[in-house]
């Protein structure tokens, strides 16, 4: 009774992925397709922007996650809901919202424009769009990680002369590290696949804002082979990252906490 829906669902999830590879593999010239500027530029830009947005998310998201994990104050419910907002917001809407904020006529954009800073339709806009949609993945994982670290450990460190910052770096972060790392990978994978917010806020300029998902969208009209190769890469790369981190964490766990 259960077998049929399970098999149907599994097939539904796996078959489309399989279809991409089945379509690519018999073709010749995968290598040349890979070396096309459309593909190489998109790949390079995607790696740079997704890693930059991961850095930005970690920098600003870590304190937020710590506050959510440790403090109870009026207004924390608002902060908690805000963190979920990008997850439920359609990416296109997020892109429009970012444009209304950072665009030349935007809330902050018009002010930035007067000092000669333009963000929309630049690589910076790509990073902001990716950070906006991927931050919740990191923040939620980090929050759970910090919550799993016993507050008594921090209190003991204080009495042993450690400032809150040193305690955080020497006690809390090492213990929450597995959660931080897997949250980081999830956020990075989400940033890598970001499409809607990017195309709205950053446009589709090759070499500047055309990341892999955007390049696929363009290539579908002209060059199916390139679209397929890029799609395959977007499957393999995040999966590989996830797999690598999981393997690393398993080994680290055995060594560190045995």
């Amino acid at each position, binding site marked *: 009774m259960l077998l049929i829906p399970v098999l149907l669902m599994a097939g539904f999830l796996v078959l489309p992925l399989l279809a991409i590879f089945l379509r690519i593999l018999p073709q010749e010239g995968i290598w040349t397709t890979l070396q096309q500027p459309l593909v190489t530029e998109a790949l390079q830009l995607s790696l740079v922007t997704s890693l930059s947005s991961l850095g930005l998310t970690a920098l600003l998201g870590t304190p937020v996650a710590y506050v959510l994990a440790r403090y109870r104050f009026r207004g924390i419910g608002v902060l908690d809901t805000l963190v979920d907002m990008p997850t439920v917001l359609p990416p296109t809407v997020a892109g429009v919202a970012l444009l209304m904020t950072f665009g030349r006529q935007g809330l902050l954009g018009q002010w930035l424009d007067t000092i000669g800073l333009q963000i929309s339709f630049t690589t910076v806009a790509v990073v902001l769009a990716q950070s906006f949609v991927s931050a919740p993945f990191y923040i939620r994982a980090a929050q759970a990680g910090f919550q799993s670290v016993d507050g008594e450990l921090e209190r003991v460190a*204080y*009495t042993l002369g450690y*400032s809150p910052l040193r305690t955080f770096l020497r006690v809390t972060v090492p213990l929450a590290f597995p959660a931080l790392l897997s949250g980081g990978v999830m956020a990075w994978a989400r940033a890598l696949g970001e499409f809607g917010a990017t195309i709205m806020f950053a446009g589709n300029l090759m070499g500047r804002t055309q990341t892999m998902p955007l390049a696929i969208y363009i290539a579908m009209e002209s060059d199916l082979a390139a679209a397929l190769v890029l799609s395959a890469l977007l499957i393999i790369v995040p999966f590989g990252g996830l797999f690598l981190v999981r393997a690393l964490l398993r080994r680290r766990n055995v060594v560190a906490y045995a």
Partner: protein
Amino acid sequence: MLEIALQKRFDAFQLDIAFAAHDGIIVLFGPSGSGKSLTLQAVAGTVQPDSGYIGLDGQPVFDHRNGINIAPQQRRVGYVPQNYALFPHLTVMDNIGFGLTRLSRREREQRVTEFVELFGLQDLGRHRPRQLSGGQQQRVALARALAIRPRILLLDEPFAALDVSLRSALRQELMQVQTRSGVMILMVTHDLADVFTLGQQVIVYDNGRIIQQGSRDEVFFRPVNERVAAFVQTGNILPAVVDRIESGTLWLDWQGRRLAAAPLPFESGTPVYLCVRASQILIVRPDRLTARQRENLLDVDVVGQDMHAETYTLYLRLPDSDAAHDLELVLPGYVYHRLELENAKSLTVELRRQDLHVIHRQDTAASTS
């Protein structure tokens, strides 16, 4: 030296306490949620009181009126929480040396070695906390706290996480640590056995307030009210009424019996509780009834018996009573067997006047049936 007077409000809970202690082991005793751990955290500096004063060795670490609140980093207190809070990602040696970052590398290594040896952890230096038994974990936590040469050691329920069978040995260890290092210990517990063994000075908490403080014997044998009497498991807290005071004797009426107690300034008719520890009730053998001046003799029926390892508990009832039992009596196994009490149906017991502790009774309900 420790001086505390502080107030702290937490929602509906209000902590308002004051005490002072010079040295040795001070035990904060009382039910869970009475504010003992909160007091410990206030001394450690991880909780800030709303008002009051905390002084260590004559120096204020918190003084609300003068705006003093020394950070926990600068208080030099050894804090050992209930679960020991060892750093799971560090070895035993790194845990012990964790608070010694201000020392030079060489001094630090020396200090760690000293404390590793002091606590017999030589073979475990490179182990991680998870690989240690509960008792070993406690030793590491104590070593880590003492390595910074604290002005006071704060222990939160130090034995609660351990097997009962381990506790008495580790209590002895803690006593030795205290004697050897001379460090003052402020310890939180709700285990009466801790109070018995370690409580040089006992402070009894109830619902955010101190209801009694004094030596262990004072708290055990002279509880100030029936709450304390119940906390220290007095066994027999008997509602009685003051009959009259004669020269040198306070006469009480309990269940229609006249009992003589040491004189206290009570008026006739005052409702009181008569506290007698279960181990203080004496069984009088029939052939020794007139061996010396006896008083407060009671004829009772034995209505139940309990055995706890080395001791026996007898439940006794007055012949004309309809209670389940009126008195509880505890005696060592060898006495129990010598008196052949297995099949005892009735006994004569003596409540010696020096063992009777009389306290005020707040409620005015009739004491006798």
